[in-house]
């Protein structure tokens, strides 16, 4: 007897959701039919991205934030992304260590994900996993991403509100401001405010926001929150900042336009990925790719003409199918 995973997920089954997520990660065919069934039931969860340097306190902050959100009566999904090793393909996923107590709450679902070579601080299937947790009935979904260098930018493609976590004393601020983090933050958390330099860091961020507002007019200015995640200080205020950003998005109509853009981008990306997969599989299967590469190496052919040839061939196949 086959299990109706979609129905189970809609009824709130963590186990069914967990399995579908594994299939999504593996790009297992079984995932897509289920996703098609779940899609109409997605879109109501609010998505918060938390990003920042390793060790900034993102997991600790996520743990505390989840508790505040639960106190407001909302259900929480957490996706914690860590990098895979490029050498072994394995991954050590350690974010749960900071969230252990949440594990006992049936209205919280936590999933660790490895990037599996995908860039941008996220796993390839993270956006799909958001949909699963949404269909599972979670009201707020927090994504903790590996923030290294400029990769954080991808989180803005998925999150409604992006919270950038900075800490004093890492020389981190100046660094990040160069890396375009000012542009992606909807809310700042200056974590480890118990450490020296927190005032200075807040000052730097505010000054920078002030300068930016002269360069480019904005109708939302990211609030700067001080937090001490380990002591559970400043978390309620952080949540209020996220809430007010959410209110801003709704009132300004941005929520809708952002989601529309996201849908458009995701659709294009899915088409791109599937086309590429099909063509690549074909080229590899019949040995044509190898032969072509050989010719390219010998300079008997050029890749520009070859690419056009292959693409045109596929276009004519589909046209042929349509008319027959």
């Amino acid at each position, binding site marked *: 007897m086959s299990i109706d995973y979609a129905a189970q997920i809609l009824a709130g089954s*963590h*186990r069914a959701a*967990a*399995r579908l*997520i*594994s*299939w999504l*990660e*593996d*790009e*297992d065919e079984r995932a897509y039919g289920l996703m098609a069934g779940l899609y109409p039931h997605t879109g109501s969860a609010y998505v918060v991205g938390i990003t920042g340097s390793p060790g900034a306190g993102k997991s600790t902050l996520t743990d505390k934030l989840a508790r505040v959100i639960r106190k407001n009566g909302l259900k929480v999904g957490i996706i914690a992304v860590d990098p*895979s*090793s490029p050498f*072994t*393909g*394995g*991954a*050590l*996923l*350690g974010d*749960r*260590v900071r969230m*252990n107590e949440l*594990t*006992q709450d049936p209205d919280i*679902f*936590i*999933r*660790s994900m*490895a990037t*599996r070579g995908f860039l941008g601080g996220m796993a*390839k299937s993270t956006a799909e996993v958001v949909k699963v947790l949404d269909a599972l009935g979670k009201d707020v979904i927090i994504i903790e991403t590996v923030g290294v260098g400029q990769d954080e930018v991808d989180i803005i493609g998925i999150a409604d509100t992006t919270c950038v976590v900075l800490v004093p004393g890492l020389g981190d601020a100046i660094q990040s401001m160069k890396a375009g983090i000012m542009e992606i933050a909807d809310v700042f958390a200056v974590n480890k405010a118990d450490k020296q330099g927190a005032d200075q860091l807040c000052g730097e961020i505010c000054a920078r926001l002030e300068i930016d507002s002269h360069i480019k007019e904005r109708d939302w200015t990211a609030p700067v929150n001080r937090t001490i995640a380990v002591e559970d200080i400043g978390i309620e205020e952080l949540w209020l900042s996220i809430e007010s950003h959410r209110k801003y998005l709704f009132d300004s109509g941005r929520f809708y336009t952002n989601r529309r853009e996201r849908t458009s981008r995701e659709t294009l990306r899915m088409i791109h990925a599937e086309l590429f997969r099909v063509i690549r599989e074909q080229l590899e299967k019949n040995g044509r790719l190898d032969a072509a590469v050989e010719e390219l190496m010998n300079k008997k052919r050029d890749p520009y003409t070859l690419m056009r040839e292959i693409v045109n061939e596929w276009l004519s196949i589909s046209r042929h199918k349509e008319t027959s």
Partner: protein
Amino acid sequence: MARKIKMIMAKPGLDGHDRGAKLLARIFAEAGMEVVYTGLRQTPEMIVSAAEQEDADVVGLSSLSGVHNYFFPRVVELMKEKGLDDVLLVGGGGGIIPEEDYDSLKKSGMAAIFGPGTPTTEIVSFIENNVRKR
């Protein structure tokens, strides 16, 4: 995308040392697995919830506190209650688990207990050979 073995590495019990468990987690990650490290002082309930949410193929229990005779079977029992009975359960205790306990732990549902000094390559291949299909 090839599937990866997902493992939960947990340290049940109250003792405060997790260097060993952390090191093992790293070794399994280096063997190509995706290892969720859950940290110290895990209750059986926490371990089983984590295994469910992570859709773990393997749960590794490392106990130094000598409570394995209670903890390990309790994890097995809860896993069964949740219907997670195809998950491979392995344990170790770095010399604290006396060999005469191995049999009863295995009978209770642990797939393997690894004694001190077991080469990690042996543990890795045991997992690879016995893990479920999904």
